[in-house]
């Protein structure tokens, strides 16, 4: 872990000392070096699954794919932000990069934590840089509202979690994940126990987000600048999924009955948010609602707690992280040229920017879960395990897949096909940086198709 943490910490001095001419190049290069070093974490050689050199930070097959995704995303965020931040004074650029790097640091410590309290503290700490990124560097006046929704939804969900963790510490004596996996499941029968059960999960359900408490997500994703949207969609949502997968192991056997409302909310949410996507005006809002839809499937998978559903949840989290982040970068390429996110404004872009249309195509295919990409594999494994849980879920998940395909097609056809709008006459050609960004998003998805063992987690 130190080989990841120390270079990440040293990104702070690099940001402030580098000459302005080399700032972005240096930051991208160092972040890529950290991402490459994080790939070595994929070498799990311990029988117990956990690889840790100290009692506080360790990795296991669940956290490693998410850690690698986080480390991989930082150079991509820096690449994506380069253009829209460049008009600002150099110190403000450095501040922006410092925020991204500090977010990265907290995320690495969150995914590497072996104590649940450290995970909780890092979970909360990631809110602060994200809030600053959204409210300071967002583009519309609604960003303040978006930041407020984001902060208070997550805080309101996670304060009960703090109380629940303190209760757990008092009962168990330790909050280390290495120990808790072996503890006896407590009989959860009183009302207070049921509230404790809910308190453990609400924070992560709000973060995922679950359908009923998802209101913060479209606002935050739309108003954030591109790096903020990327990290929100790709990693911060998965923090919720990761936390839920860690906590839910010790919440048996009450989960059998108490999980029904949340499973149903998640499954119905797939259909509702998918349908809302078809009526969106704003491109980023469409992608944000599609994130809610995919994460609904992940939430349902995690709540039924079978080995296959956990595997499907992890695969879908990783694949969705990369695909959703790719779509936000594509939406940003449109936004930088037109300063508008309206779907109707940027039509027929295939005639103007054909190479970018190829990336749009692949990203939309990944979003609609085309075989053999891991998006489909994750969705299919979750759908299969949900079918085993109860045969009637196939109606909801099947309709959800159909709606996902239709809104992905809608997004592709609206932005790329059709007549070019007359209002647009001067579009910059695509930068090589943008092509590189898209390649670095989509090539890992294609490569993960060939070696899914990296993503499967420890249940397969």
């Amino acid at each position, binding site marked *: 872990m130190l080989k990841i943490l120390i270079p990440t910490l040293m990104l702070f001095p690099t940001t402030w000392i580098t000459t302005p001419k080399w700032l972005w190049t240096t930051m991208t290069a160092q972040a890529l070096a950290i991402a490459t070093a994080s790939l070595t974490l994929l070498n799990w050689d311990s029988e117990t699954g956990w690889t840790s050199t100290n009692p506080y930070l360790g990795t296991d097959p669940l956290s490693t794919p998410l850690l690698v995704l986080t480390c991989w995303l930082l150079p991509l965020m820096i690449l994506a932000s380069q253009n829209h931040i460049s008009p600002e004074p150099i110190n403000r650029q450095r501040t922006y990069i410092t925020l991204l790097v500090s977010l990265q640091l907290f995320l690495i410590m969150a995914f590497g934590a072996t104590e649940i309290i450290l995970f909780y503290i890092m979970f909360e700490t990631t809110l602060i840089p994200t809030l600053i990124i959204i409210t300071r560097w967002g583009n519309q006046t*609604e960003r303040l509202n978006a930041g407020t929704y984001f902060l208070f939804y997550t805080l309101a969900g996670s304060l009960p979690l703090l109380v629940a963790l303190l209760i757990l510490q008092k009962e168990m004596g330790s909050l280390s994940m290495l120990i808790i996996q072996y503890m006896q499941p407590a009989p959860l029968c009183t009302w207070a126990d049921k509230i404790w059960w809910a308190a453990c999960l609400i924070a992560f359900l709000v973060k995922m987000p679950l359908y009923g408490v998802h209101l913060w997500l479209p606002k935050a994703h739309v108003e954030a600048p591109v790096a903020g949207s990327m990290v929100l969609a790709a990693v911060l949502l998965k923090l919720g999924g990761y936390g839920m997968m860690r906590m839910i192991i010790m919440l048996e056997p009450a989960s059998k009955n108490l999980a*029904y*409302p949340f*499973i*149903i*909310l998640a*499954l*119905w949410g797939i259909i*509702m948010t998918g349908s809302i996507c078809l009526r969106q*005006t*704003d491109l980023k*809002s469409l992608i944000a609602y599609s994130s809610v839809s995919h994460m609904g499937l992940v939430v349902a998978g995690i709540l039924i707690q*079978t*080995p*296959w*559903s956990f595997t499907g949840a992890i695969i879908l989290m990783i694949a969705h992280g990369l695909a959703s982040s790719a779509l936000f970068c594509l939406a940003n390429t449109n936004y930088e040229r*037109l*300063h*508008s996110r*309206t779907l*109707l*404004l940027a039509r027929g872009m295939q005639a103007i920017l054909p190479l970018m249309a190829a990336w749009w195509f692949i990203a939309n295919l990944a979003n609609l879960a085309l075989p053999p990409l891991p998006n489909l594999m994750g969705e299919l494994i979750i759908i*299969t*395990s949900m079918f*085993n*849980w*109860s*045969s*009637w*879920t196939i109606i*909801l998940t099947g309709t959800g897949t159909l709606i996902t395909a239709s809104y992905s097609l809608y997004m592709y056809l609206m932005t790329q096909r059709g007549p070019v709008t*007359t*209002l*647009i*006459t*001067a579009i910059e050609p695509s930068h090589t940086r943008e092509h590189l960004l898209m390649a670095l998003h989509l090539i890992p998805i294609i490569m993960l198709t060939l070696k899914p063992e990296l993503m499967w987690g420890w249940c397969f």
Partner: protein
Amino acid sequence: MADYRDAPLASRPKTLDPAEYFAVSPAKRKAEEERAAIRAQLKRQFQLQLNDPRRVTTIEDPALTRWTYARVSNVYPTFRPTPKNSLLGAVCGIAPLLFWYFVFKTDRDRKEKLIQEGTIERPFQLSS
């Protein structure tokens, strides 16, 4: 205009109706002229912007801006609960949750009962 006669089986279209041109009241004609003048001004502004050699931005369409604002940011202030949309919310938002809760609970309880009795059939050997 040329003297068009109505075809035996087809009626004259509205734009070829002489009453449209020759029997218009002065107030109506004045209103039509004002509207045509506004349209011409808008077209002129658009053409000026379209052919301006120094323009680098896209041409802003105020109608599109108003429409986007109304659809995205002005939803809640203009919402009023009516019987129709409350019913819609209940049917799409609350009733399905209750319906699916009963469906899943009944199905799972039935399976649990079969497992308890030992009569469950597992024809395939599958992990899940």
